[in-house]
């Protein structure tokens, strides 16, 4: 009992209050995303043309907590559904980025020579070419669908993972453990997957926590300009685009999803920075 109390005390001593609040917020939005089906008060696409553009209940409305939009759809339900869509798309996108980047980095480090040169030139090329433009080009030529959109999000930022993974794999190859398992006859795949990856995963995880909020911004930006998530599906960005048309009279329609995006990316950025400062041995304090 005493030990447990000390552990809690220790946790609060190590985690500053601001970080703690940020972590609580992140857990809350993830819980909302996971259980969105059970907590949406109404069907997010059900229209009710009699009760259109109702203000939030705390501003005198009688149509649900956040009111309704121009088609009478319940804003709170749409917000919950949007949190689910935005987080899911950003999460899958970040995983694709991490896996793709890490594999490219390992391949470059393993084969060296010409393979390394070609892959690193691609990395330079990606640094020079803004992701937004590449995404718009591909969306223009192939039209929009959700799978293509998620794959595109997966491309954003892969080169950071590739550079990190390559650098770490190059130095790990020289480490005693990698040399030892190689002598024992392990295949390259086994060495990278079972031995090198676990040793460098800390840094990959830190990079993941930094990439994830960027993904949310990229997804919401693309959805905001109308080229991301398409109706009837909704995301935080497309909700804001919809609300942009009602700024003069129903300002909350754009502001509510905006606040959710801002607080979520802010919380993730500060937690990500904090994690990096505490986990990443390459950061000198």
């Amino acid at each position, binding site marked *: 009992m005493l030990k447990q109390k000390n552990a809690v005390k220790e946790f609060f001593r190590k985690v500053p209050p601001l970080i703690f609040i940020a972590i609580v917020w992140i857990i809350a939005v993830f819980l909302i995303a996971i259980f969105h089906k059970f907590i949406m008060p109404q069907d997010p696409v059900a229209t009710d043309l009699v009760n259109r553009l109702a203000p939030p209940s705390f501003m005198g409305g009688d149509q649900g907590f956040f009111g309704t939009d121009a088609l009478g759809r319940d804003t709170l339900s749409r917000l919950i559904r949007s949190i689910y869509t935005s987080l899911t798309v950003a999460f899958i996108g970040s995983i694709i980025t991490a896996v793709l980047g890490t594999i490219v980095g390992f391949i470059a480090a393993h084969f060296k020579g010409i393979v390394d040169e070609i892959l690193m*030139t691609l990395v*330079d*090329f990606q640094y*020079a*070419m*803004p992701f*937004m*433009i590449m995404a*718009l*080009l*591909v*969306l*223009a*030529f*192939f*039209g929009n669908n959700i799978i293509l959109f998620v794959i595109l999000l997966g491309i954003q930022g892969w080169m950071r993972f590739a550079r990190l993974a390559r650098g770490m794999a190059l130095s790990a190859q020289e480490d005693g453990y990698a040399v030892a398992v190689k002598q024992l006859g392990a295949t390259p795949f086994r060495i990278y997957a079972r031995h090198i990856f676990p040793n460098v995963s800390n840094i990959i995880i830190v990079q993941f926590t930094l990439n994830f*909020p960027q993904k949310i*911004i990229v997804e*919401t*930006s693309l959805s*905001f*300009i*109308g*080229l991301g998530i398409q109706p009837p599906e909704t995301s935080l*960005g497309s909700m*804001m685009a919809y*609300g*942009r048309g009602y*700024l*003069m009279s129903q*300002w909350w329609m*754009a*502001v509510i999803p*905006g606040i959710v*995006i*801002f607080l979520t*990316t*802010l919380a*993730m*950025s*500060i937690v990500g*920075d904090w994690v990096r400062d505490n986990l990443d041995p390459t950061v000198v304090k």
Partner: protein
Amino acid sequence: MHITYFLGKIARALFTMVLVVTFVFVVLRATGDPAQAMLPEDATQQDIEHFRSMWGLDKPLYEQYGVYWLNILKGNFGQSYRDRRPVTDIMAERLPKTVYLMTLSIVFAVIIAIPMGVKAALNRNTFIDRFTMGTAVFGFSMPNFFLGILLILLFSVKLKILPSSGSDSWKHIILPLLTTGLAYIGSYSRFTRSSMLSVLNKPYIRTAIAGGLSRNRVIYGHALPNAAIPVITIIGATVGRIIAGSIVIETVFAWPGVGRLLVTSVGARDLSVVQAIVMLLSITIVTANLIVDILYGILDPRIRTKKGGV
């Protein structure tokens, strides 16, 4: 001056351009029939024939690639099917608007951010330092379309002193300028701060102080020029990305520049326009990167003489 340093940088820039053109060509070919993709649905047989011969679509793939290059080099990007005008004419109309907005934003940000970053570095852990770091985190997490909407709510809806869309008068530029400027201030000031901090710890600064130079002389004569290099990189990167950076902001404020043109063209699948903007954009980025590299070489002799550099 080491000529090989500069030649190497130019070669790399050209190579990046080749990759961009090739990438666009591959994407275009991957759609199947470019004539079908690029021309409107009501295109006549004659239009299609003309398009095919212009881009050499009846020839083998490697020749198509050559023809593609020739057209690009001649600045021949075809016609917008929405406007029925050459893409180059449309660009000539839209580009100045974007350059005007984004250049002012960058200048505005530099004027505020650099003194702010220097001040923060010289007064570590004071209010100004925390404020600078706070602005940086804020600028990083705040999607600029949300910031734009908040500014519209405050200045256009509530106070009714500034217009929320269009570009007709000088008043129209203030809100988009503030929105983009604030985001840049966050990153510039953070870079200036960290760069100054690392320079201030160097022995030659201690020597300069010990030698009896005035505080201002040390800061502005010795520390800042040396701290400038990473700052120039980040500013150069935003200059190269002005069109990319303008996409969202021009949509929020209905600013009639290239960014908005790109968004509406993607939506309408006006592919000739999209293709032209992508090329133009890559040229801007590659040129900006090249200029930054050359500036580096001039500012820091170590870079152009040492192999590889920083």
